[in-house]
């Protein structure tokens, strides 16, 4: 009751929103507070653990986790305290795993996990063997980035063909290359694949996906490219400028939605 009163004092707008419990968008702070009062700490912990596990399983395939799915499959009747549980899950990821939970798409929110830890010097980078798809992704992302952020698909296919990866043929390592690039990478949000308007026959273009924007370091790509070409990466002036400019949107704000 006291909680309610203080809230009413704080803002009448919040009170008006409070009535709107049935609709699930983002519960208001007051709704969360109200919901939390009814829960035991143990219940909260259990749901948090479930959410962490759900994230880890989903991350196996690098597919982003949709908020709607979290609510439907994990939280269920706890959906009114959703922001709190997500916040705690994000805390667990940060403190236990060194991961960061990143929210994308404000309209239809999805979440991905990003590794916050830099690989230690001299330490073996991976216990498991590397995924060759990363190599393919690197090639495509490099081409897109170096060509100014957007390229026609023909350029990507031609480049891959020269590397003995023909999108029209089954590759022994990647299987159906076209499907991998235009579907799997797109679903994982590494790439965006969109139609170019007014093209006949229809042509598509590639851009960096949202996951690539937060997960892939442009500077490191440039450094690697410099190493490959045996030249100073700073000579790609435009690309270097972009890679070194502070990316406010991606790094500065840890974007768990609960921090409002």
């Amino acid at each position, binding site marked *: 009751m006291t909680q309610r009163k203080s809230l009413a004092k704080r803002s009448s707008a919040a009170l008006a929103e409070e009535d709107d419990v049935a609709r699930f968008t983002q519960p208001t702070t007051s709704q969360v507070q109200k919901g939390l009062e009814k829960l035991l700490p143990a219940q909260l912990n259990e749901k948090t653990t479930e959410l962490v596990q759900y994230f880890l399983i989903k991350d196996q395939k690098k597919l982003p986790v949709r908020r709607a799915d979290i609510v439907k499959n994990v939280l269920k009747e706890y959906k009114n305290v959703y922001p709190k549980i997500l916040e705690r899950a994000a805390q667990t990821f940060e403190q236990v795993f060194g991961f960061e939970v990143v929210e994308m798409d404000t309209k239809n929110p999805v979440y991905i996990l990003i590794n916050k830890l830099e690989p230690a010097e001299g330490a073996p980078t991976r216990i498991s063997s590397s995924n060759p798809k990363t190599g393919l992704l690197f090639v495509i992302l490099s081409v897109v980035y170096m060509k100014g952020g957007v390229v026609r698909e023909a350029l990507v296919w031609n480049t891959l063909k020269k*590397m003995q990866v023909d999108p029209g043929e089954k590759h022994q390592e990647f299987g159906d290359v076209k499907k991998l690039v235009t579907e799997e990478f797109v679903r994982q949000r590494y790439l965006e694949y969109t139609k170019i308007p007014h093209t006949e026959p229809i042509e598509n273009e590639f851009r960096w996906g949202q996951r690539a924007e*937060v*997960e892939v370091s442009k500077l490191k790509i440039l450094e690697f490219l410099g190493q490959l070409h*045996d030249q100073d990466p700073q000579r790609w*002036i*435009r690309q270097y400028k972009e890679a070194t400019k502070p990316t406010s949107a991606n790094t500065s704000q840890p974007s768990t939605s609960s921090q409002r």
Partner: protein
Amino acid sequence: MKRARSSSDHDTSDGERRGLDQDAGTRESQQDLNDEDDSSHRKEIRSRYRDLISSVQQNREDMLNQHGNKLTEVLYEANTLFKEVHQAREAALDSQLLVVASDLGKEKASQLFSEGLSFDTSAFVQHTLSFMGLNWLEEEEEGGAATTNGFLPQDAWHKLASRAECCFKSTPSFHFMYGLFYAEPPPPKPRVERQRKAPTKEVQRIMPTQLKKMEASHQEATEKEVERIMGCLEHYHTQDPTAPISYYEFVINPDSFSRTVENIFHTSFLIRDGVARMYLDDDKLPCIGLVEDDAPQQEEASVRKQCVVSLSQKTWRELKDAFDITKSMIPPPNTQNE
């Protein structure tokens, strides 16, 4: 018309484009000179235009990256082709080529003005391939475009991936040590029904035979036992044919009430079949004796009677004490046989 469009389309054109405009002008003057209308000839022109368009589209990236004159060559070829164009259909193809070519020109121009070093995908591919360990078995140079047919080792993409991984802040994915649990629904079991049917048949077939057997064996056992007791009676009779055998002494087994009852039951068969007879002695006590073949009159004279012998645990004990029975006259069947 052609001229107007091309010049308005390309106000910002570089040197190459300006050359194109001039070419278009010469085309127009040439156009009037040729007037023959040969459909097969027109077909040929169209197919050559289409070849040109597709070659530009397919080699787009190479034409952009190489510093060769391929675009100029294409434009010259188009110009010579255009001399023979008289009709709208071919002209449409010509303008289509122009669109493709000007798009290419635009991109080339943008490369010129881009800051710093431009990114050459062909060079990128070659550098990357050699990083991946490409074996340069053969390298062909064709009109400035290098096509590599080298041999890539098996782990080429792994090698690139493990180096490229450091650019990715991706999380290591977690796996179950014992592998995944695939939640598949269990396969349906149609055999449940079969199982239910089969036993019922079996039971129906087996049950009657079992019953028959039991009956047979039971009957056999009774007959055997009756014969055995008959043997006992004969044995005592031959030992002393004159001495009467007390019925109670004969049938009572002092150690077992149930054995006694059985003895009474089996003995009753002997009486019924007429091989033994019961009579009261002088003390009005029942006696049992064999019916002798040489005494038919006696048998005839005797009137058949029925009576019920009742025996309880209590009377059995009293009889035992009264007749002072300590040993059974009829030995138990299992010991007797051996």
